[in-house]
């Protein structure tokens, strides 16, 4: 809604993406005022955003919405890792109960016009029976039973219920693919930051990434444009896991899936990486989402393709492998500079 005097409430501003989004939407001329809400104060600079310390799991949030005359709510307080929330229980409470409370408050706010929810493609799950590309109308092949994927599925269920009850509110759900970028800290980025990357033997997952700037941009467009519905958002193209790791020039250790799971729990207790079961399924089977609706209805075009987003992320990492490439480059150099004096030992 581009009307002047638009007041946007953003939840989950204590975390990096929420804070960045609040700042970027505050810079939008169509937006008058941005209120950031979270239980803990943000670590970085909030700029023009006014911060209100409130817990969305608490009815106080209704008072904030009413008092500040909020007409747009952007729900970004869905966390994917139990680590930052201090355990799976509090993660679930924050995600599911927080959303319920927020939506209950929204339902009672007569001035509310728009609701934008940041969801994720994790809700499609990952299995061997998946179609190659999920469209927004498809359901996961197997209903998620635990973890983040289940939280997201429940959250989307509540959002759909809200949309039915308040048909005057425009509801846009953004299902973002794995967000990646030089400063993003998420299960998938901490996985790729491991010096030696464990992979599942015999499987090669298809991956899609969304650059963090594209996520901020698509959420901003969802706030300012008059579009409703659910949208898959991902960068163009696909990277295979093996290909991504080769581009990072990091060595891999292929091992059976069960072992990767065990290693994952060790890594989790060492706080090196987070390997939830759904993450393991994702790294085994991968997932692709169809972004036709994003282009045609939402009118959004990501500025980074999957490969470009990954390259931007990879530029901040130092390669720990890449010996094969260096050896081949050496052979190639020798061949091109002096083809007549081929030295011994070449085995191209």
């Amino acid at each position, binding site marked *: 809604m581009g009307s002047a005097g638009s007041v946007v409430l953003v939840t989950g501003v204590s975390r990096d993406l929420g804070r960045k989004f609040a700042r970027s939407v505050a810079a939008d001329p169509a937006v008058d005022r941005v209120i950031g809400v979270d239980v803990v104060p943000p670590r970085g600079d909030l700029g023009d955003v006014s911060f209100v310390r409130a817990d969305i799991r608490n009815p106080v949030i209704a008072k904030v919405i009413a008092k500040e005359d909020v007409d747009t709510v952007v729900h970004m307080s869905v966390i994917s890792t139990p680590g930052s929330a201090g355990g799976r229980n509090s993660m679930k409470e924050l995600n599911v109960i927080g959303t319920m409370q927020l939506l209950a408050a929204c339902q009672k706010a007569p001035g509310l016009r728009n609701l934008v929810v940041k969801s994720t493609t994790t809700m499609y799950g990952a299995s061997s*029976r998946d179609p*190659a590309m999920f*469209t927004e109308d498809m359901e996961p092949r197997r209903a998620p039973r635990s973890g983040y994927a289940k939280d997201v599925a429940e959250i989307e269920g509540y959002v759909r219920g809200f949309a039915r009850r308040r048909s005057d509110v425009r509801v846009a759900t953004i299902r973002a693919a794995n967000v990646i970028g030089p400063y993003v800290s998420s299960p998938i980025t901490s996985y790729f930051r491991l010096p030696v990357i464990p992979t*599942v033997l015999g499987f*090669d997952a298809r991956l899609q990434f969304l650059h963090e700037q594209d996520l901020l941009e698509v959420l901003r467009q969802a706030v300012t444009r008059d579009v409703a519905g659910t949208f898959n958002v991902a960068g163009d193209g*696909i990277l295979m896991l093996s290909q991504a790791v080769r581009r990072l020039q990091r060595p891999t250790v292929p091992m059976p899936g069960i072992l990767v799971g065990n290693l994952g729990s060790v890594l989790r207790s060492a706080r090196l990486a987070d390997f939830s079961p759904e993450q393991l399924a994702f790294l085994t089977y991968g997932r692709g989402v169809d972004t036709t609706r994003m282009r045609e209805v939402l009118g959004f075009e990501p500025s980074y393709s999957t490969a470009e987003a990954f390259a931007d992320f990879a530029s901040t990492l130092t390669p720990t492998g890449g010996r094969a490439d260096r050896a081949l480059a050496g052979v*190639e150099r020798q061949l091109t500079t002096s083809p007549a004096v081929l030295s011994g030992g*070449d085995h191209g």
Partner: protein
Amino acid sequence: MGDAEIIPIGTRGRPGRGTGKQPSSAARGLAGGSKPAKPRAATRKARPAPEPAAVEEPVETVEVPEVPEVVEAAERPPVTTVDRGPLAGIPAADWLSAFQHAALEVFGDQWEPQLARFLAFLRRRVTGDYAVDEYGFDQEITERFFMAALRPIAERWFRIEVRGIENIPTEGGALVVSNHSGTVPVDGLMTMVSVHDQTGRFLRPLGADLVFRLPVVSALARKSGATLACTEDAERMLSGGELVGVWPEGFKGIGKPYSERYKLQRFGRGGFVSAALRTGVPIVPLSVVGAEEIYPLVGNVPSLARLLGVPYIPITPLFPLLGPLGLVPLPSKWLLEFGEPIRTDEYDRGAADDPMLVFNVTDQVRETIQQTLYSLLMKRESVFR
């Protein structure tokens, strides 16, 4: 080691049985002019012998590749050789020429640019600098590796003969529907190679759930262009203008006993027809003759199959009797015939939701394939020719 153990080896070119004793008179007679010499023994040592006096004759260190015919051993002067490392003494020029010959052998006359291209290819693979499509299809590795590996099998082993290739449209989506046989889905691979070699198009197979559940197989399947046989993927590929291959008999087809060869099984639920109807692409029936005989399925171990979660455990006349050797397919002669395309764009919208029509078209495709199979079998001289 002053007194080395003396081991007599061979007869040193003289008649006799190598016992070190005087040859028998018969042997002496056979040997012609050679005089009987007093018994000698060869010592075989890695190092030069320390004391020639310790043994009563010249010591030879025997170097296997350079051993000449030791006929006149008695006249030879004492020889010592110096032990060398396995690589140290080979001059660089030899390496170079060996390498050049190898390169010439592998890449032909234009080996230098070829080798450079090959290296560039290797580097692209190692650094991940290649593209895959949304189904995970890796065109480069499929063309340069999978196809290249399968082509000799198709051309030399099965001597595949393709008929009616003009029935495959040169562009746009089309659905190739084929019979399925042969215990192991080799027919799918061979069809992929044949279609690519004859038309330059890639046949994108639709694979069963099991394919994508198995490690290694699933990764290879995705890389070579396969995707899961589900309505969503089939319609997506067809509307994307791909040439899609489907084997509607599934495991009922490849896992049927040899006695039921060339009898088409039920064609699933006709999902492939409704996908073609929805996307309006032609259906090209394909009949494959020859695949039934590669692994004649004579038995099955249902209990083990259930335990492993696979549709069947095949027993063929050679497997598991001969172990891994039993995995070599029998070299039957293959015939592939692509039939007239069945147009689906003439039906009106909503035809895909008319079950009667879908069943009719399914039957039409099935009948076409079955009749072509019979006529091909008549034309074939024998299984192996």
